[in-house]
């Protein structure tokens, strides 16, 4: 019997059975989907979130392990830092009250200073023999581990709330934002590795340019963790400032610019701020753009101070930004970003030539974390 005859001889009977089964299956699927469609979707989404949550947990644990082992190796095993690190990872920062915004910047600055001081003191207690640069790097590393812990806990919180309430919209929102969260978490993991090794990060492009300009000149610490060097640039006097390196540190550029301006009685023709900026998707990393205003990120204390003092003395502000992706800002500096240094310096010179006269004074501020960059 050949295949053809087999099919033709049994086709009517089998066709009926198969068609009936298929019809019943379709009907069952339709009814199930009508009543349980959203529930099935919720289950699928929860499963997807669960996978990401598991990865976040692995990353959090790995970050903690790296932090503990690095501190152990620097302290040469003199004490076990596990408890202290676990306590630091759970540390909570409570922002100042904003119901009455009057004086909020002063209060915010105070709280940030207290927090920074506490972290550095805790690290000093764990590694008493470490130098300043090492303490700064380790503090940054612990902060990256802390961010990994906080992200994991926040995602877990919304996952469990969604699971408990079976709320489609909570789960949907979490699932929608998850790819971006994963990208940011990966960036923090890379940051942790860079801080551990003391390598310059993408955010350090501002300090790197300032360091290039300052090289060979004498610099001094104008305020805590911030240095200034007086250099000659295109026949003008340039006060170049950056955070004090090579330890991981952002310094206090706002306070430094304010003090410099007060010292000079406002006799400054222009303030040029160089910083890394988040690029749009599609833009190339290391692309250089110019702007007007104070290009200083973070909580806003430094930005506020520069805006205040520049307005007081009516000093024009220029910004030069180097575009970077979210993953590049805190990971070891990419070649494309490092290669933008010469272009930025050319632009600084052009701005100085075009907007100031010979003999004038300008302030050039390299903003960002100066890890792995000295002066």
């Amino acid at each position, binding site marked *: 019997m050949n295949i053809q005859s087999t099919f033709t001889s049994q086709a009517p009977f089998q066709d009926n059975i198969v068609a009936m089964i298929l019809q019943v299956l379709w009907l069952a699927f339709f009814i199930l989907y009508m009543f349980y469609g959203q529930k099935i979707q919720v289950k699928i989404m929860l499963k997807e979130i669960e996978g990401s949550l598991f990865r976040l947990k*692995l990353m959090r644990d790995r970050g903690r392990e790296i932090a503990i082992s690095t501190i152990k190796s620097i302290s040469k095993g003199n004490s076990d830092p596990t408890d202290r690190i676990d306590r630091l990872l759970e540390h909570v920062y409570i922002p100042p009250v904003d119901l009455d915004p009057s004086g909020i910047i002063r209060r915010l600055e105070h709280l940030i200073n207290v927090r920074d001081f506490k972290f550095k003191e805790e690290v000093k207690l764990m590694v008493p023999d470490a130098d300043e640069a090492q303490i700064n790097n380790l503090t940054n590393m612990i902060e990256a581990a802390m961010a990994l812990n906080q992200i994991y806990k926040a995602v877990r919180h919304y996952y469990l709330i969604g699971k408990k309430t079976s709320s489609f919209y909570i789960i949907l929102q979490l699932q929608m934002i998850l790819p971006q969260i994963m990208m940011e978490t990966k960036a923090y993991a*890379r940051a942790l590795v860079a801080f551990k090794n003391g390598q310059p990060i993408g955010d350090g492009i501002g300090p790197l340019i300032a360091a290039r300009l300052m090289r060979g000149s004498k610099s001094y610490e104008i305020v805590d963790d911030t240095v200034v060097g007086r250099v000659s640039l295109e026949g003008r006097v340039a006060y170049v400032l950056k955070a004090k390196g090579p330890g991981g540190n952002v310094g206090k550029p706002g306070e430094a610019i304010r003090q410099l301006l007060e010292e000079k009685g406002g006799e400054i023709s222009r303030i040029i701020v160089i910083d890394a900026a988040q690029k749009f998707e599609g833009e190339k990393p290391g692309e250089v753009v110019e702007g007007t205003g104070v290009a200083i990120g973070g909580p806003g204390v430094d930005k506020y101070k520069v805006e205040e003092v520049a307005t007081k003395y009516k000093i024009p502000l220029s910004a030069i930004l180097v575009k970077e992706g979210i993953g590049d800002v805190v990971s070891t500096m990419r070649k494309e970003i490092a290669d933008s240094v010469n272009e930025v310096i050319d632009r600084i010179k052009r701005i100085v030539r075009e907007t100031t006269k010979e003999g004038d004074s300008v302030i050039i501020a390299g903003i960002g974390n100066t890890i792995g960059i000295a002066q």
Partner: protein
Amino acid sequence: MSKSSGDIRRTQVYFVSMIIVLMLLSLITLLQAFKTYREKGYVDYLSFTLSISAITLSVYMILQMKTRPPKTGFEQPEVFTVIRCSKCGFETTRKFKEGDYILKEADLCPKCKEPTFIYMIFRKADEEEKKRERYEL
């Protein structure tokens, strides 16, 4: 805090044994269906469909298990240090060493015997990163 490697290995063994059992059962069912067809000339569509689906699923699961886990970001990137001579500008590039930082003084220049310094430290973006950044528009 984290899942131990022993646990992960146990899970893998469990999964592999499940896949093997699934594959064996599917192959037996498929052989049975062939045997029935050869002996009685009857095509058992249900057995054919189920066994082929199960074999496909097993192969898919094995392929999934073989794929490398996604990068978490803790991988050590390849980082380079560029050393430049202050006088003649001669440059050398080597792998990053612990303790390197930009503007750190380095050895004497092999060409003019003047002091050199660390001019740059950078990493090269991996292919995955570059692929993500390629845009046509």
